């Protein structure tokens, strides 16, 4: 087995540190993006549905209130 003698040697990558580590950094960015983006989309979608439901409830309540008021005034 080859490998490196020390951690600093590992970080230095035999002088190729900037190339190797930037490639692996981009690799991590792509991995994170591909998990994070669909998760965020899912969250956003759930929030949207929740909001939609709330708006519907509010509308129904407001309608109910109006009807109550008109009923009060007529009686």
């Amino acid at each position, binding site marked *: *087995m*080859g*490998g*490196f003698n020390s951690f600093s040697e*590992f970080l230095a*990558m*035999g*002088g*190729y540190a900037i*190339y*190797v580590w*930037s*490639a*692996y950094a*981009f*690799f991590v960015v*792509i*991995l994170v*993006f*591909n*998990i994070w*983006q*669909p*998760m965020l*989309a*899912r*969250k956003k*979608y*759930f*929030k949207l*549905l*929740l909001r939609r439901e709330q708006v519907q409830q509010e509308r129904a309540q407001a309608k109910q209130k109006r009807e109550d008021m008109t009923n009060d005034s007529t009686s």
Partner: protein
Amino acid sequence: MWQWFFKLSSPKWFYTISGQLMPWLATLTTLLLGVGLVWGLAFTPPDYQMGENYRIAYIHVPSAAIAMGCYYMMACMAAAFLIWRIKMADMIAKACAPVGMTFTALALFTGSVWGIPTWGTWWIWDARLTSTLIMLFLFIGVMALRSAYDSEAAGAKATAVLTLVGVVNVPIITYSVKWWNTLHQGASSLSLSNTAANPPQIWVPAFFVGFGLLGFYLIAIILRTRNEILMRERRTEWVDEILSASKSKGQGLS
């Protein structure tokens, strides 16, 4: 076989099975990627020609292969959608485009970075680099067409037609670029996957990373497809149950 095939085409079945499969797939992927990357990055001897720089190949080669495979997968899904009108196939095809695009971008970036010390420049008009770049354009075109349509159904069909036109062209493009490359500068001898000269301890970790990345690719596709199912099948009872169940679980942000 056919029964299995049509089961797979049911969104509910896909959603349930993929949900059950996900923890196993995630564990396996993490293990494979973890072992492969640590092994490949730290415990393999340097290449006798390229020094430590060859370690980029551990992520470059599988990402390029998966990007190419992703286009073919997208084309198969497009064909299944156009021939059998399987909605599930279109949802997977839709998921393939952005995932394939990011994998193509990853292959291009790592290839370029690898090329700086090797070729002395980040970009050469090498046959493989050029055809990968064109692959990126094809993915972008597919995504652009889908987003240009307001109607989901029409966009799906149009994208499927474009994908199939594209897949007929992919071999022609690859061949023409190879021919063009030899005409202009002779075949490049700087091949990344020249495994013949390397000992097994260099290419065994590559298998770990390769299968790990394949697992990751499947996870990425499944995540997007599941989202798509929830959005398109919103009116069905079983999706409604899932949505209300997640809502009652505190804001539904699971």
